[in-house]
């Protein structure tokens, strides 16, 4: 490090320039990563926050919740393995709602769940709903921003059914739309209404679950071990058990959105490595005669390699530290509507990857230094 540090001290301008570029690139990497995470969260937070780790879906549904249709027999089979409390049905339906008292029209997703089960939403404002009382809903707080309040009546445009908003939950989005939680009774009513082709009085459908014959649920959420998950999958031909991750990436639009951001991040990493590699390579070529002298004087190659790598390490760690500070500052200044999320784990991973790529970029310089012959020092004019 003797050489590495003194060289940086002597050529402050040159090394600051590299550092500024690295700073900008690493900042961009962190920022886009945070944005990607934030977007992902804004997209599917309802799924991500679900205390379920596996989902049973119909095997020909392509992992997509809405395409999947399951009935009581599948639920019973899943419950036989997982236990009563660890397997719970979920109905998913996208729709458009209007609120009578506020001038609101919004795309939402209905989640029909067992309000006594593990998927019951954690109400942050107002009151929850029960399995027995129809006509109440708990909605995502994003609807609150558009003017819906507790006590508002929201109506489903497709079926004409309406609910009174009894409470709000935080961070519950599905495919970028706020989630409206309803109980199974309302869900059945809604399904029947849809079958009958319009709005009808459906309060008498309490015993309909099996008699209608159509599949009452979309998927079954599980909280089980992987062994139990494969057991459930093996039992039934027509179903498939997917992980929460798989379920998330099958949410419509999610994969496309994340893949393009991921692509950008990957490119940024490559750019970081290439920029650094080129800069250091040029500097190294300029210093060829110096390396010749150093070798003639008896400097070991390992020492020189460490010197080059050390400089890259110092530069990348320093610029990364600065850009982390910058990212935090930026995050605080960002408006709430801009989704940005950077958890510790992602940050550490991104940082390590960045440093790794920088070191990779420095390797061609090291290779170049290794090729310099100590003989260069003799019989040459130069600095």
């Amino acid at each position, binding site marked *: 490090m003797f050489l590495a540090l003194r060289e940086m001290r002597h050529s402050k301008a040159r090394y600051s320039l590299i550092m500024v570029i690295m700073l900008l690139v690493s900042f961009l990497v962190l920022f886009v990563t945070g944005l990607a995470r934030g977007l992902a969260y804004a997209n599917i937070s309802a799924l991500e926050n679900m205390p379920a780790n596996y989902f049973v879906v119909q095997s020909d549904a392509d992992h997509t919740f809405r395409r999947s249709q399951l009935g009581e027999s599948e639920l019973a089979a899943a419950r036989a393995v997982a236990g009563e409390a660890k397997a719970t049905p979920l109905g998913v339906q996208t729709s458009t709602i209007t609120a009578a008292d506020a001038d609101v029209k919004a795309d939402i997703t209905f989640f029909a769940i067992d309000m006594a089960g593990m998927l019951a939403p954690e109400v942050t404002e107002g009151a929850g709903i029960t399995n027995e009382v129809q006509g109440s809903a708990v909605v995502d707080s994003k609807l609150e921003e558009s003017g819906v309040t507790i006590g508002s009546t929201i109506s489903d445009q497709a079926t004409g059914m309406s609910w009174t908003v009894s409470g709000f939950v935080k961070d519950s989005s599905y495919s970028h739309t706020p989630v409206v939680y309803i109980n199974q009774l309302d869900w059945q009513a809604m399904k029947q209404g849809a079958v009958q082709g319009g709005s009808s009085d459906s309060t008498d459908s309490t015993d309909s679950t099996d008699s209608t014959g159509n599949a009452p649920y979309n998927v079954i959420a599980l909280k089980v071990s992987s062994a139990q998950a494969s057991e459930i999958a093996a039992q039934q031909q027509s179903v498939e058990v997917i992980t929460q991750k798989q379920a998330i990436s099958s949410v419509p639009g999610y994969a496309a959105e994340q893949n393009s951001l991921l692509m950008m991040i990957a490119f940024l990493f490559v750019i970081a490595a290439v920029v650094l590699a080129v800069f250091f390579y040029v500097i190294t070529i300029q210093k060829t005669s110096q390396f010749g002298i150093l070798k003639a*004087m008896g400097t070991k190659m390992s020492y020189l390699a460490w010197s080059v790598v050390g400089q890259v390490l110092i530069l990348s760690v320093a610029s990364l530290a600065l850009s982390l500070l910058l990212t935090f500052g930026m995050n605080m200044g960002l408006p709430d509507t801009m989704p940005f999320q950077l958890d510790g784990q992602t940050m550490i991973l991104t940082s390590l990857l960045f440093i790794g790529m920088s070191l990779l970029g420095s390797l061609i310089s090291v290779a170049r230094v290794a090729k310099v012959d100590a*003989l260069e020092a003799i019989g040459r004019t130069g*600095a």
Partner: protein
Amino acid sequence: MSAKLIMKQVTKTYGDGDGAMTVLNNLDFTVNEGEFVAVLGPSGSGKSTFLSAAGALLTPTSGEIFIDGESLRDKDKGALTELRLQKIGFMFQSAQLLPFLKVEEQLLYVAKLAKLTTKEAKVRATCLLKRLEIWERRNQYPEQLSGGEKQRVAIARAWMNKPAILFADEPTASLDYSRGREVVRMIADEVRSEGKAAVMVTHDDRMLEWCDRVLHLEDGVLVQA
């Protein structure tokens, strides 16, 4: 008296086949302790080649070289690097100082490579810099020094690790006559006060006043002037 450098039947041929050129041809040479030898020769006669071979930078085509009693023949790259560090001091044409190290650090770096203690290194560097009259300039970068001052730093650097022998490749090439003579005198002084040996290659025959022996490189062999 012990020999610091022995070259036995050293041959160096560049290229092969028809284009082969023999630069050193069964050359024999010995330098003893306390000796300062000058090697003269016109440009292209093979002076740099001779010095590179003697200084363990270039492996000769045939022949054997001993430095301070150690044969170079069976040493690998790493061992040669270590030997250069411990036994050989180099002075290159036009000082070749490291531009990013201050004068004193040029010496301390060599000491660091040789794993001298910080205190030892400081004492030795101070002593050398004072003897070569550049102590006042110890905190300056090479770019702030004159050509003669740079060569004096180079001398100090070359002697820093108490090498058995010093090799100087045209140390006066980039200096005017009087500065050049001054530098050669200082090399001679150091050879005497350190009790070591030095070989200087030059094409300038006005610089030979302080040399113990003067040899000519002709047709690949060294002959007495």
